[in-house]
């Protein structure tokens, strides 16, 4: 049986306690919520924190608060609760759909939205047991020097793999980070860095406490995910798309690629190709074309990376067609398990 390494375990009662405990315990302590990302990594000795500070009993992080301006979702909200929350399904069907695409129903009963936002970057040279990694003399993300994906690479190329992130960025989400020094709020997009090791700008002592979304206000979002199976698998290419239309024309658009770099990739050229045009095949085609260029997946996930790159065009187009469809995106069970049609 694979077992966890030894650690000390702290159960704070409030967010203030939690950040204070982290300040006391120092860099060897990490926060844990659902544990669905951290515990497997710990069992494989990718991470071996000396202390865990659990935030899973902090009810103040569980809430989903709708207001006139938008919605504040506590970082500790359980994924399956969000996926089934009628208000989220109503106001942000694209987000509900993206959350429903995360791993499996069992893991969505455990994982939190904050955990998904902070999901460790993935790479099939890194997501391995200690012994496997020892056999390749490790990699730069943990215990080693080199990046086996591209041995000349100065930085780690592990892949951003969280399903909720592209849609949330497309919807203009902001996140709140709290440390002993106080809270700060940043656009979700700014949480990420295109570096497989230092993939978030959150400081280790900061606790992600919530994510805030502006009201739908004419925005619609969709999510498309490429993976081998209809369940379990992380995205190896994903598209979060959101548009706001004025009349027949796209007034604003945000397009975000996941699964092809260490950070979610904002597709500004593709967004430009949509703006001011009707959301029809011509503009969709142009946007898909513009999206393909910056998509540079590497050979460190499932599927051949060349095909993944090729699929970028198809998946961006599919996500945009979802938005163009009169019934809108997000309805489950009415779309092929995989694919783009």
């Amino acid at each position, binding site marked *: 049986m694979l077992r966890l390494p030894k650690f000390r*375990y702290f159960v704070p009662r409030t967010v203030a306690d939690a950040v204070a405990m982290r300040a006391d315990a120092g860099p060897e302590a990490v926060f844990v919520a659902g544990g669905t990302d951290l*515990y497997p990594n710990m069992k494989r000795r990718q991470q071996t924190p000396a202390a865990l500070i659990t935030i899973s009993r902090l009810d103040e992080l569980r809430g989903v608060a709708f207001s006139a301006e938008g919605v504040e979702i506590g970082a500790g909200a359980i994924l399956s609760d969000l996926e089934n929350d009628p208000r989220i399904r109503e106001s942000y069907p694209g987000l509900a759909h993206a959350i429903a695409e995360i791993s499996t129903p*069992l893991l969505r009963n*455990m994982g939190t939205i904050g955990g998904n936002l902070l999901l460790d970057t993935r790479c099939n040279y890194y997501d391995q047991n200690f012994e496997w990694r020892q056999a390749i003399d490790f990699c730069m993300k943990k215990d080693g020097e080199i990046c086996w994906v591209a041995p000349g690479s100065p930085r780690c190329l592990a892949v951003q793999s969280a399903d909720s992130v592209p849609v949330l960025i497309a919807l203009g989400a902001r996140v709140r980070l709290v440390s002993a020094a106080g809270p700060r709020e940043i656009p979700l997009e700014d949480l990420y860095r295109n570096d497989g090791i230092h993939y978030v700008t959150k400081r280790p002592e900061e606790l992600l406490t919530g994510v805030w979304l502006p009201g739908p206000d004419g925005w619609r979002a969709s999510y498309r995910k490429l993976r081998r199976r209809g369940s379990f698998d992380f995205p190896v290419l994903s598209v979060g798309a959101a548009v706001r239309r004025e009349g027949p024309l796209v007034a604003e658009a945000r397009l975000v690629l996941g699964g092809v770099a260490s950070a979610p990739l904002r597709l500004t050229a593709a967004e430009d190709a949509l703006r001011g045009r009707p959301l029809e095949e011509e503009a969709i085609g142009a946007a898909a074309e513009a999206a393909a260029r910056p998509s540079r997946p590497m050979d460190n996930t499932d599927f051949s990376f060349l095909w993944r790159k090729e699929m970028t065009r198809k998946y961006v187009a599919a996500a945009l067609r979802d938005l163009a469809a009169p019934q809108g995106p997000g309805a489950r*069970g009415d779309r092929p398990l995989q694919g783009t049609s």
Partner: protein
Amino acid sequence: MKVIGDFVPLNASIGLRVNGEPVEISFPPYKTLLEVLREDLRLTGTKHGCELGECGACAVLVDGRPVLSCLVLGLECHGREVETVEGMASAAGLHPLQKVFAELGAAQCGYCTPGFLLTAQALLDANPSPTFRQIQEALAGNICRCTGYIKIFEAVELAAARLRGEAAVPRRETLYGTDFDDSGLLPVSQRESGNYDLEVAKAEGPERR
């Protein structure tokens, strides 16, 4: 921390309910619920296939919700209600899901079965009339290598019907496949019917093979 000689007590103690019974137990903080159930409580009905959340074999219910016991710390279950496969049957007999899994051969090797049963139980508790698609989706976090899932889907549908109080029986195709010729079968019991067919009785004679 109190140190007695060179013995450092590292265990944590918690109280929880397991299959309806109160349990107080102490164990090291880094033990998962899976390990606590199997090793400390000797409830070995909960299985493990990967210990990384990738197979569903270790699913149990925590406060009624199906979760993977390999990725839940035992400590996190303080004050909670845990249900394992050992808790499904009652004095009245097997849970209808257990009964139909047995009836339809939905348990072949039986190793993934506890995880499927508990996940399915949570589904039916929340939704007594799931569609076929909803059954597939609810069970999408459990891997079975034996059955191809077909008998499992059919079992959950049948159990749902019975839990709704319907006198449901398995579909003929489930038991025999499509288009099966069962003319070679003798009646299960002639004697009870009181209508003994001597031809049939002779067919039970020594030259049957």
